[in-house]
């Protein structure tokens, strides 16, 4: 490790500790906000791990998230709670692999459409199964507090950052950057592009499912319509792109201001939250193509410092 890496690790560890201690120094209000932020930070960061280098826009977050909540809904009475996010992650990864095998040979827009449809498809399948089995609405009544959910999310977040860092240094990460720049070149270099993409797509799938499993106790009543709400997928995409996907810390730089702004808008002009989503999207396209990360890099280039 270089000294620079060691320095970064120390900074990351300090920030992580600061986040983890939020329940100690923050008010309950900030804990609730923090839980929402942690949820989006984990989702957006894992989303960017795949979509950043490959430029495939995935709208499947809601599908994986919903699957995760249902894993908890079905299993929380018979299994210890710590096992549920793991099981959810496993199912999420398998689902992502299946979807990836089918769609990642397709290019850009087909993939987007398919992932958008996936959440709806899974929702309908779940509903159909419930209908066939005469299954009832699910109540997840546990003693898990918001503080514990927050800590689980922070822990998962740390894991995602570590994984992102490792992937960035690995052959897989390198291969994906080449694919993102030019897939034909990547193929000619002998990279198994389909396999590389599928392998990495499993990461956001597993993470989103685990997040869903962790958050289910917060929702208490689980029904397909709310578990698979498509808005979640769009929020994650917007936040990640706003922050920028070029660096590991990019998405969280989008999540924090966006969540705060969303909260302000909700308080001041409750009917305009969707407008915020639209404006943020326009802003990304026209003004901030690389998100805050891109802006930061541009400013650094212009005003000295390293390129």
């Amino acid at each position: 490790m270089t000294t620079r890496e060691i320095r970064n690790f120390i900074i990351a560890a300090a920030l992580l500790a600061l986040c983890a201690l939020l329940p100690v120094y923050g008010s309950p209000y900030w804990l609730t906000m923090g839980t929402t932020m942690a949820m989006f930070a984990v989702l957006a960061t894992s989303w960017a791990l795949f979509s950043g280098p490959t430029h495939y826009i995935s709208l499947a977050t809601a599908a994986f998230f919903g699957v995760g909540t249902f894993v908890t809904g079905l299993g929380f009475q018979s299994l210890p709670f710590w096992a549920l996010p793991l099981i959810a992650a496993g199912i999420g990864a398998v689902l992502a692999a299946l979807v990836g095998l089918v769609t990642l040979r397709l290019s850009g827009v087909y993939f987007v459409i398919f992932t958008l449809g996936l959440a709806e498809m899974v929702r309908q399948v779940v509903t159909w199964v419930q209908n066939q089995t005469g299954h009832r609405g699910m109540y997840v009544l546990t003693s898990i507090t918001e503080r514990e959910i927050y800590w689980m999310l922070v822990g998962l977040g740390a894991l995602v950052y570590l994984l992102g860092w490792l992937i960035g240094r690995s052959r897989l990460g390198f291969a994906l950057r080449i694919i993102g720049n030019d897939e034909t070149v990547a193929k000619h270099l002998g990279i198994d592009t389909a396999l590389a993409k599928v392998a990495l797509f499993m990461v956001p799938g597993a993470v989103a499912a685990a997040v869903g499993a962790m958050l289910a106790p917060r929702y208490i009543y689980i029904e397909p319509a709310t578990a698979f709400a498509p808005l979640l997928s769009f929020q994650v995409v917007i936040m990640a792109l706003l922050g920028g996907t070029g660096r590991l810390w990019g998405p969280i730089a989008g999540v924090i201001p966006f969540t705060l702004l969303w909260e302000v808008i909700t308080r001041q002009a409750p009917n305009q939250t969707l407008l915020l989503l639209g404006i943020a999207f326009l802003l990304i396209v026209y003004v901030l193509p690389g998100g805050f990360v891109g802006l930061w890099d541009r400013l650094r280039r212009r005003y000295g410092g390293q390129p």
Partner: protein
Amino acid sequence: MIRRTIMTGAAAAALFAGSLGAAGAQDTILLGAAAPQTGPLAGGATVTHWPAVRLWVQQTNEDGGLQVGDQQMTIELVEYDDQTNPQQAIQAAQRMATQDEVDFMVAPYSTGLNLAAAPIFAQLGYPMITGTAVTDQQPALAAQFPNMFFVLGRTSVMAEDTAQLLVDMRERGDLGDRVALVNVADAFGIEMAGISKAILEENGFEIVYETSYPLGTQDLAPVIDGARAAEADAFIAWSYPGDTFALTDQAIVQNFAPQVFFTAVATAFPAYQERFGDQIEGVLGMGGVNADDPAFQEFAQAHMEMAGQAPDYWASAATYAALEILGQAIEGAGTTDRAAVLEYLQDQSHEYATILGPVNFNENNDNERYWTVGQWQDGVFRGVASQGRDGVTEVETFDGWN
């Protein structure tokens, strides 16, 4: 040293007096309310929830507010949109409690959002009197959230009463044996269809047609077509607002007129009557009220004047009643201290006078007297079956779309 002690003592005394003064000066109760103003349930909430909440606040203030101890306190309403999103419902409750520092909160709209907000209400120590949560989990929920109260009733009982109504009608000789049973394919529809099917079969009814359709299905012609082809005597649909309208529409188009036509949620909405006019005479639906009770009529009149629309004939009154209960509990406890008010509510001996009639809560924080089935009769949706309520009207046979 002595001087410093005296100074500190004086400062403490000043602070104490200050805080007393502040408490004494407060003559308003802050009431927080978060419910859908956007999102899938915004339509239902603007019919059922918001007008009832605003009306109660307005009327209470016009009457001079609540008598809390020896003080007359008016109510100030703080409103938020939860976007029909459980995440936002939780955040809104948290925000109202810690940022706006509201004294009390109105329970949200719909079963799902109420349950999502329940832990945060419990954790913050706010009484939560729900007017729009229907569930069967009252015992488990009340055990986990002792601050949560239920006014609207139990789902399973509503399914049972609907099936029982058919049994009674057949005994009277008004109904044949053949039933078409359909449901929206989600937790609510599946559960209700399951319960009513069991009772109907037990009583020797023949289920001649049975199907379900996904939530949000636009074209329900095949469902009505199927029920008509099966020559059903009774049509029972465990439906949501969108499909309630679509099914009725199709039944009119195809002139499918069995002896019993039942659609579930939203049949009691004023919009249902506006849309179909006199044609719905005899249609059965979920819920109901005692439409002849002067208390309800007065409420409906005031609702009309304030919101420009009639209340629905079911949960509007329950939402309003939930606030009446809260107000009476605050007056009864004689303080705005939430713990004391909660204690008052938890005392099962207390009874509350509401537009639904008297309400009290059992050991599961559950109101045991509520309406289950209603019927459109002479342009009014009257309760035809209830648990322990007065004013039940005799059910009529459906005699076709006029």
